[in-house]
């Protein structure tokens, strides 16, 4: 009994601020909905938020289709969130998930199309591995630059995001364009598509993403590599003193982060999109940052945060249809969640939370890296 209560208290201590930030975001967004209702044909409607949130909930969880849609939308966010969260653990801010995601998706699409006629047991894993390696390679670049030269990962990954978009557009146009289509795209992936486990596209990528939650958790908590990653993030000087090599750890972490982002791209490609064409959305990359922050870089936290964000995406269309509240309100809610996480003092004041942890370290990483920290390698 008391052990249960202790566990609950421990969970509350880490999760109270994110949970309350979500509640507060919904409350504030409700005002936005009410105010915006004034300008619609129906006029002022103070109960509109209740209706909208009800439809949102029904759209995300009210039916089998809804639940599957939620999970399908959550899967790449889980992996992307893990990618960003792993970086935070080492004190790195990987804004490059968008680019690594695209490279992963592209690599999976190309290899998938090449193996479209091979058996699925062979083709799907091969395409997945290609996506993972593509993302890893694209994460290795900023990691190596940071470790060797001190080039800031925030700057390099933002630039590499643009580089990825342009490079892949060129590649689709000039290297791997499939014949017979009116626009540049890769070929059909055929048998490389991820097997669908349950009707309405509950594809294999979803359990795979959940598997990675536990794999990353295991890596961070149980292995010396995870210990090195966390130590470099917490105190690079102590890491060096303890015999760790921050240069190596930084490169490794960015590579692993890119690998996770690449897998996110691959499962999205092989499970949902099916072909690569210029202009495919990479919003997963930026939502992943929000997911990692909301999940406080903890793999389990990221899992729940990704499901929440997936539910937003899955439920929003029904909300728009039933209540005419535009889908874009979701972006406002998401932005408010992050705002209240960053300004957690507001949450503490409103809900009178007394928490022992005054600073959310991931946000400290964001702030520090933006301000231009020193490379963790220091003088070597």
């Amino acid at each position, binding site marked *: 009994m008391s052990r249960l209560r202790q566990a609950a208290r421990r969970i509350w201590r880490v999760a109270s601020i994110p949970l309350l930030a979500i509640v507060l975001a919904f409350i504030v967004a409700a005002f936005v909905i009410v105010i915006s209702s004034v300008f619609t044909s129906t006029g002022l409607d103070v109960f509109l938020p209740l209706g909208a949130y009800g439809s949102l909930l029904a759209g995300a969880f009210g039916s089998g289709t809804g639940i599957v849609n939620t999970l399908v939308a959550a899967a790449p966010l889980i992996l992307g969130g893990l990618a960003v969260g792993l970086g935070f653990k080492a004190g790195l801010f990987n804004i490059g998930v968008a680019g690594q995601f695209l490279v992963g998706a592209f690599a999976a699409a190309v290899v998938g199309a090449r193996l479209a006629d091979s058996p699925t047991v062979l083709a799907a894993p091969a395409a997945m591995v290609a996506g993972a390696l593509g993302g890893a390679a694209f994460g290795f670049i900023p990691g190596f630059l940071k470790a060797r030269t001190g080039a800031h990962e925030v700057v390099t990954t933002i630039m590499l995001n643009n580089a990825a978009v342009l490079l892949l557009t060129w590649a689709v146009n000039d290297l791997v364009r499939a014949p017979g289509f009116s626009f540049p795209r890769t070929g059909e992936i055929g048998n490389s598509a991820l097997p669908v486990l349950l009707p309405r596209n509950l594809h294999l990528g979803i359990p795979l993403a959940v598997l990675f939650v536990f794999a990353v958790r295991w890596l961070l908590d149980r*292995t*010396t590599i995870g210990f090195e990653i966390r130590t470099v993030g917490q105190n690079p*000087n102590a890491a060096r003193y303890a015999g760790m090599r921050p240069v190596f750890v930084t490169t490794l972490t960015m590579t692993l982060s890119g690998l996770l982002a690449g897998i996110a791209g691959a499962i999205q490609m092989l499970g949902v999109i099916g072909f690569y064409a210029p202009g495919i959305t990479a919003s997963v990359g930026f939502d992943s940052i929000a997911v990692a922050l909301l999940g406080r870089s903890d793999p389990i936290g990221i899992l729940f945060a990704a499901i929440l964000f997936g539910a937003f995406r899955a439920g929003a269309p029904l909300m728009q249809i039933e209540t005419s509240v535009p889908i874009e309100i979701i972006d406002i809610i998401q932005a408010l969640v992050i705002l209240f996480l960053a300004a957690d003092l507001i949450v503490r004041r409103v809900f009178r939370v007394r928490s022992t942890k005054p600073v959310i370290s991931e946000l400290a990483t964001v702030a520090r890296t933006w301000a231009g920290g020193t490379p963790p390698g220091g*003088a070597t």
Partner: protein
Amino acid sequence: MGDQPPVLEMRGITKRFPTGTLANDAIDLEVRPGEIHALLGENGAGKSTLMNILYGLVTPDAGEIRIDGQPVTIHDPADAIARGIGMVHQHFMLIPVLAVAENVVLGQEIVRPGGILDLGEAAARINLLAKKLGFDIDPSSKIEELSVGQQQRVEILKAIYRNARILVLDEPTAVLTPQETREIFEVLRRLRAEGASIIFISHKLDEVLEIADRITVIRRGKVVGSRRPAETNANDLAELMVGRAVSLRVDRGRSHPGASMLEVTGLRAKNDRGQDALQGIDLSVRAGEIVGIAGVAGNGQEELVEALIGLRKPTGGTIRLGGHDLTSASVDRRRDRGMAFVPADRHKYGLVLTYPLDDNLALTRYGDPPFAGGFAGIIRNFRAIAENAIRLMKEFDIRAPDPKVPAGTLSGGNQQKVVVAREFRHDLKLLVLDQPTRGLDVGSIEFIHKQVIGRRDGGAAVLLISAELDEVLDLSDRVLVMFRGRIVGTFPAEEAQREKVGLLMATGGARA
């Protein structure tokens, strides 16, 4: 002076923390005008809590504060400042990128009409104040360009600028060199002559005896005695403070040096600014021998220990340990060869403050059995990590509720014990100690010194660097003097007299 009414009275101050610790138990304290009043006690005795109550940072459960005989309630530091109380914290509250003048006026800016900051006027006032206190400081220089001693003077200026009449200094000498300590004492004496009252928190007996007019000793939250320097001595104060007789001098015993363990020849290295900090160091330490390096801070000691442990690349020379050339070996490899290192800055190198104690107690051997094993040797063994923590906490008397509390929540003395406990492994070949007892109270110092001698007698080679000349002289079997990146003198223990060594430290001998 003695019969003047007190400027500050604290009566029956009691504070119990939510964790149950009774930090202050009905403490009485009286401070008179123009008095330097020392507050002496071990780490965690309750000195800082008492002063935080005075400064409005902590609310007491019971008790009364009177200033000039009037009862006052102090809600926050702004209240305290308004009542003429100034505080210089151990960790400075300065903004490194701002100039001295900007830091001093912060929050009390002089503003010309139109909201324009008048730094010229501020600088003029600061110059005047500094002159009065007997030191020179350029109000336009940036804090980050100043030495620690100068930064501390800026903190004092800041308090005086806000018209502090009661100045609290929390362990002001903990971060200073002996020379800087002498200078700050001069400043404090001038302040006293101006009529200010100073509360001087310390656990260093000789300093307290030198500077204080009155000494109040606190042990476990209670006042256990009050003395004038003339009527007491270091042994008496130490006993009051710790609650038992303490030997202030180490009984070193006879050393039985064996074969040469560490051989350093012609070692050269640059400091962070690219200057030659080590200009050809030759030294050797034998097994079962303590070699101490005396020297004024900043003569290359820091670079020497960093080069030895592998945190700084030498630009020349060799380092050999037990016959193995380790000049360009990694930190990890040196540790495998039996090197251990207690760093001077435990927050920078020695600990990960957010980690629990058990991880910190295994930090430098995290990848070795029994702490890791299994598949590819990368699976951490939490059982071994926990057992190691429990054993070391007992052996080294590390006071913490359990091995899972973050290291950052421990007192400074206990944090240092964590580092020492971890580094004093049993298979030790060379132990490099950089300021091993800095910031510790007498009880902990005695304990650590005994441990050092125990490791020496167990056959380890010990290299000791300390800014406390007495510590070097007390512990070392051989004393080397370091000056401007060179070893300028060697003394066997029996010939190392304080004056002789001190002179060489200051001048570097004939070569200076």
